[in-house]
Structures are given as structure tokens and as C-alpha cells.
């Protein structure tokens, strides 16, 4: 008889709902006029779909560049910052951690408006660099948190042994700490990328309409009549993080560092 383990039900339901949602968007992206309460579209239109995908390429490129830069700059900053916090005295450590994690504690609307006002004041709004900087400010706490968590899992004696062998602090960072943090930095890069990829409000506020990313267009189309275009852009928006997830798992598998991801 067919038996269902109750523990697997939530997981199964999540997978079914995700799959069903994707299916609906796929059908919607190639349909012509699919209105409620029709169960199935009357017509299909592939030419418009191809045109929608084509139109999305510049948006896709901008969104990707921003997310990739946030991810890259994020790990370049979070690795040495984590090393600094790891080596600093206990009382300063807590202050520094709170300072860096602070942006993550503020509601996104508040921080978004704050960054927007600040960037306008210093004449640094309405360009990709400003959007990257704003995304970085909210991604960095999470990226640093991951880098710190993997660093604090390491045995301090490993670094002390390196010092005893004659290596200075910065040499130990490059030769020992960085390789030990590698799996964590992959994860931090992945998290930074996905946080930036999904940003809507912050991009609108700081980009000042000059920088247009996929989520901005998707949100603006959500209530429009052009549901075919909306569905096509949703699919593209979902596709890239999905590919990055696959890439992340492939890299971890290749380097044999899956253990960290599982923990």
C-alpha cells in the first residue's frame, strides 16, 4: 500500500507549489489573452514571447552586473573585515560586529530612504555605482556574518601555530585564513548575489530611475494588463538565481566543501 511519511509532506507541498507556479508562468509567458476564469489560454503567441525575452536582455545585464559587483566587492571586504574582527580584543569586537550588522537591523524602507537622501546630498545617486554601494550596505552584514561564522569555527591554534612558525598576521590571513574560509566565502558571495538580485525598493530610491533592473520592471508590470510580458520577465528573474544556485553547489562539490554548506 502507498505510504506517505508525514515529515516529507511540507517539503513535497513546497516542491509542488513551486513547480506549479513555474508552470503557470511558463504558460502565461506564451499565451495571448489569458483571463480569469479561463482554465487555459485561448491562443498562444511565441513571437511576442521571444520579443519579450529579447527586450529583457539589457535589464538582465544591468541586474547581473550590479549583483555580481555586490557579490565580488562583498567578499573582498568581508574576508579581511572578518579577520580583523576575529583578531581584535573582545570588547572592541562586539562594537565592531554591531556596527557592521546594524544596516541589517533597520527596516529596508527606512535604510533605503536614508541611503537615498545621503547619496543625493553627496551627489552620488542615479548611477550603477550608487546602486551597487546601496546593495552592498545591506548585503555586507549577511556576508560578513557568514565569513565570521566560518572563521570562529576554526581552531585558533592553527593560526597560533602559523605565527610560531614565523608568519606575521597578514601573511597568516592570506596563507591560512583565506583557504580555510573558502567555503564560507562561496556562500557569502552567493548570498550577496541573491540579496542584490532581488532588490526593488532600494534600487528605485538610490537609482533615481536612471538604473533599471529586472525586479523594478517586474514589480511595475505585476498590476499591468501585459501579463504575458510580466510572466516572461518573472521567469528570467527566477532563472538567474536558479543557475547561480546550481553553480554554487557544483563549486562546493568540486572543492569537496559540501560539509560546510550542509551545516
Amino acid at each position, binding site marked *: 500500500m502507498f505510504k506517505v511519511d508525514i515529515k516529507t509532506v511540507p517539503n513535497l507541498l513546497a516542491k509542488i507549489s513551486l513547480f506549479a507556479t513555474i508552470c503557470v508562468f511558463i504558460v502565461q509567458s506564451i499565451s495571448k489573452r489569458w483571463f480569469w476564469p479561463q482554465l487555459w489560454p485561448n491562443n498562444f503567441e511565441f513571437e511576442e514571447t521571444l520579443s519579450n525575452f529579447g527586450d529583457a536582455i539589457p535589464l538582465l545585464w544591468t541586474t547581473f552586473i550590479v549583483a555580481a559587483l555586490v557579490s565580488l566587492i562583498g567578499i573582498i571586504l568581508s574576508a579581511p573585515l572578518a579577520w580583523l574582527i576575529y583578531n581584535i580584543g573582545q570588547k572592541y569586537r562586539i562594537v565592531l560586529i554591531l556596527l557592521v550588522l546594524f544596516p541589517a537591523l533597520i527596516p529596508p524602507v527606512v535604510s533605503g530612504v536614508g541611503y537615498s537622501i545621503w547619496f543625493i546630498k553627496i551627489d552620488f545617486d542615479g548611477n550603477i555605482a550608487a546602486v551597487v554601494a546601496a546593495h552592498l550596505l545591506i548585503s555586507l552584514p549577511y556576508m560578513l556574518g557568514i565569513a565570521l561564522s566560518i572563521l570562529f569555527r576554526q581552531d585558533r591554534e592553527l593560526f597560533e601555530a602559523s605565527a610560531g612558525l614565523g608568519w606575521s598576521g597578514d601573511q597568516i590571513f592570506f*596563507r591560512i585564513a583565506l583557504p580555510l574560509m573558502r567555503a564560507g566565502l562561496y556562500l557569502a558571495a552567493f548570498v550577496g548575489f541573491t540579496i542584490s538580485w532581488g532588490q526593488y525598493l532600494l534600487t528605485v530610491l538610490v537609482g533615481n530611475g536612471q538604473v533599471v533592473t529586472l525586479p523594478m520592471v517586474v514589480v511595475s508590470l505585476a498590476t499591468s494588463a501585459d501579463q504575458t510580458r510580466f510572466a516572461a520577465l518573472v521567469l528570467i528573474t527566477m532563472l538567474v538565481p536558479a543557475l547561480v544556485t546550481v553553480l554554487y553547489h557544483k563549486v562546493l562539490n568540486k572543492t569537496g566543501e559540501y560539509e560546510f554548506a550542509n551545516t
Partner: protein
Amino acid sequence: MNLLTLNGIQKSYGQNNVLNEINFSVEPGQIIVLLGPSGTGKSTLLSIIAGLTKPDSGQIELDGIQISNLAVHKRQITLLTQKANLFPFMSVADNVAFSPNMKSLSKSERDKKVNSILEEVSLSGYNNRNPETLSGGEQQRVSLARALCSEPKVLLLDEPFASLDHNIRIEHQKLLKKLVQDSALPVIFVTHQLDEAMSLADKVIVIDEGTQWSNQIPQELYDKPSNPTSAKTVGFNVIDGVGLKWLNKPNIDTNNLICVRPENIVMDEKDPQIIAKCIGYLFLGSGYKLNLELSDGQTLDVLTGSQLSELELERVMSTKEIGIRSDFWLNF
């Protein structure tokens, strides 16, 4: 000539006095063993010498130069602990060749040196192995090889063989002794195991509750420790002679602390010095360790040289009064 000298090293954490006025020196090729119970400040002292912990006061001199305020990586002092601390993302050879002085060598010179040092620690052919695939003993030898490759002026060992089983521990002790003899490298070795201290040391420093109690050669410390604390550390029974009821006083001042080795006590019904009662025993393989209670409640251990028969053991346990004597009492 002294290579490393410690003068008046003191360290405390809040009210807890961890080290108090530690003074000793180490000569090239000498193994100094710091012996004492766990948690008495031995590892803290090594940490201070290595530069990982700052002392509250005192000076450390290496080769005539003050190093008390020198950074860890500039001291040329390498510390090995119970954990081998090998880098998991490097092969055995890369671990061994990790120190900065190895990086300045050409690849062929480096390979030659790595191979030679791996041969010395009986790990030839292990070059490409991942450290995580090695046994605990092998990891410790790689760690030792790495330390030797860094050419330190002093090697500090903090119970490096404590996690190894008995036979492998003995092998490692022999290896260490040979390496020290060959290289004239001074070593400070921390242990709480008496046999390890006795077999390795040129000099044994007894540390208990942060205080340095003696600095003696092993045989002298074993036979004639300079104070009751050292005596207790090297296995003597330390008892207060004042309150004891002596049937036949030994030829020493019994109105003070007196010490006797467990193996020097014999059960003697004809001419006993003290009467005791057996309150417990441990079978040690080669004999028994009896725990005797004296008339005033003090206890002492007795090692029986040969195995007691079951009958004899039953008699000892059931007898309320056992006469004991020793011809080797120490007086303080």
C-alpha cells in the same frame, strides 16, 4: 651557556594567581620538563614563552636578547600542542615546507629538505598524503617535522604525546630524544606524567599551583626531592609524622612532614614501624597498589613488588592491623 632564560615570570587572571616567580634557563640540546598536575600553569608558561600570552611581570631572554615584548612570529620559538594543528588543505609535504625559511629555498632544495626530515620522523613517502588521512601519531610527527623545518631556536612541547597510546608514546619519546641529540635544539616539554618526565628530561622543573618547586635532574628528583610538593608530584607518600603512633621510629625527625616512596614500604609483622589498615587496592598487572589508612586517618599508598596471591590479598583486606616499615624515609 644559557640560550633561554626566564626571570621572575608572573601571571594572574583577576584574583587567580596562575604563575608566581618562575625562574629557570635552558641550554642548547637540553630537554627541560615542566612536571605538575593539570591546571597548574605549565601550559600558560609555555604560552608566555611563545609570546601568545603576556606575563604581568618578568623577563624572557633568548640568546642574550630580551624577547618579552617581541611578536610571536619574530621569536623563533615554535610551540607544539596535543593537537597536531596541520593545515587540512595542504599535503604532508606542503605542511612540512610551510615555514617562511623554507619558502626562500629553491624547489629542489626544499624537496630535498622535506624528504630528509620526513625520513627522520619515519614518514618517508608520505609527501602527497592528506593530513586528515594520517593517524594521530603520524600527524604529530608531521607537526614535529614542520617545526624542525622552521629551524626554531627553542622548541616548546605541550603534552604532544598525551593522546597517543602507550607504545606509540614511547616510540615518539625515543624519536624526540634522538632529534634533540642530533640537532642540539633546546626543548621545554610539558607533561603531568612522571614516567614521561623521567625518561625525557635532562632537568625536571616541578610546578604546582603556579609555583616553581624544584629544578633537579630526574634521578635526584626521584630519589631526593627538595620539598614535600615535589615529593608528592614524583609519587612519594607525604605524611605528617607528628600525630602518628610509632612502634619503632625511623632514624629521622618524625615531628615534621615525612615522605616515603610506595615501593619502599614493606609489610612487616615482626618489626613494624607503624600500624595501618588496608582500605582499598588497585591491580596494576605487575603487582598491587594498596591504599592504607594510618591510625590518625592519614592515608598512604604501597606498591607490592610481586603479585599477591588472592589468598594473601584477602588476608590483607580482612586484617584490621597491618604492620609496615620502610628503610627509606625522607624528612622535611
